[in-house]
């Protein structure tokens, strides 16, 4: 049986898949399929998606996280993705960078959330070297104390995915669809969205960020260019991804739950 080459010059191999304007649901399906059915390492860069879309984490509850009436009124798609973490709104300005790796790509790296997150921050530390005050702060990528990317992960027995949506630019009005989350890092200090996040374009040109990211990836891996066709395999044909678009009925049910919660809170006896 032929053994595929997994390392070269002591570094693990990685397939670099560069996309442009791929819809975020399609990207998530691709990622989950590669996580579950591929044996290779992958770095996917999607340069912007299509229309503004809300993406919640696996356990996200629309009634807690979204201004649902506005979301329905403006027909903003809402997706529940397969990874953990919080809620983002992505659009043509967003840059997506995803790593899908075998655990044994880095034998010294424990495949738990925080070690993987720390490993990823090494890549971006290199990207922003000499450009911005980058750090990993309570599991967020920040410049100074402003978040500029949403991170999330999924870890299986032998592989993991770490993906980020970078706020290179965004429309202020879109942030109005998101409520302040109940679970927030301490450094957020109850700041509203617009005081908490920042635009990457104020720090680095778009193509520069992508080029520097690819260079930084090249310091941890040996890169091979890949295309979408290369991501297909016989194992992937029957795979059913779990990330999905929420139906209108589900969002309407969430409005009902949200109103019920408010009614309960309003009628609860006040503490003396």
């Amino acid at each position, binding site marked *: 049986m032929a053994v595929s080459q997994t390392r070269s010059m002591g570094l693990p191999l990685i397939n670099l898949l560069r996309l442009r304007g791929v819809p975020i649901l399609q990207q998530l399906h691709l990622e989950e399929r590669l996580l579950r059915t591929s044996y290779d390492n992958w770095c996917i860069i999607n340069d912007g998606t299509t229309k503004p879309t809300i993406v919640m*984490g*696996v*356990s996200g509850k629309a009634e807690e996280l979204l201004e649902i009436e506005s979301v329905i009124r403006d027909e903003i798609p809402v997706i529940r993705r*397969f*990874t*953990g*973490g*919080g809620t983002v709104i992505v659009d043509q300005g967003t840059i997506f960078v995803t790593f899908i790796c075998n655990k044994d790509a880095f*034998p*010294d*790296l*424990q495949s*738990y*959330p*925080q*070690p*993987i*997150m720390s490993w990823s921050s090494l890549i971006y530390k290199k990207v922003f070297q000499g450009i911005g005050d980058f750090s990993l702060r309570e*599991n967020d990528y920040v410049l100074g104390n402003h978040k500029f990317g949403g*991170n*999330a*992960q*999924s*870890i*299986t*027995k032998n592989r993991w995915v770490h993906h980020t949506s970078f706020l290179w630019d965004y429309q202020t009005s879109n942030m109005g669809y998101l409520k302040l989350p109940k*679970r927030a890092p301490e450094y957020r200090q109850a700041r509203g969205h617009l005081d908490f996040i920042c635009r990457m374009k104020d720090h680095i040109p778009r193509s520069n960020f992508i080029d520097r990211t690819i260079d930084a990836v090249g310091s941890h891996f040996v890169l091979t260019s890949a295309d979408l066709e290369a991501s297909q395999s016989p194992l992937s044909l029957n795979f059913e991804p779990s990330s999905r678009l929420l139906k209108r009925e589900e969002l309407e049910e969430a409005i009902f739950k949200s109103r019920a919660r408010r009614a309960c809170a309003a009628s609860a006896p006040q503490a003396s």
Partner: protein
Amino acid sequence: MASRLWAVRAASYLRISLRNRGFATVIKDLKYADSHEWVKVDGNSATIGITDHAQDHLGDVVYVELPGEGAEVKQGASFGAVESVKATSDINSPISGKVVEVNAKLNDSPGLVNSSPYESGWIIKVEINNADELKSLMEPDQYSKFCEEEDAKH
């Protein structure tokens, strides 16, 4: 010092062996998978959860994805997931069988997986298909050593 003494007494009451460093505990009478799940066998039934080592490394669990009752689980394959620190992590079954009960308390209190990984944080109960599969699992001392070796490597 007082809290350490309390921990020793509590450990003795609960039949837990305290490790010398850190606080990851390993329970006697359970068997362990190398993906950090434990199984407690009672006749043809088994209770499954994740270990103290796993919960400690995962961080605060905020959500547990549970299978449905009646679902088949296969040794080494994923049957659910926990969410912690922005990550979903697969829970893999140490043994093959059919799910007869899930711990519904985890829906409202996922943190039980952290606070009581071997007791009230249990995840599923299964009817065992093949008891021979237990032979491939680790005994407590073996698992303890496995965890030490894993942690020492990183």
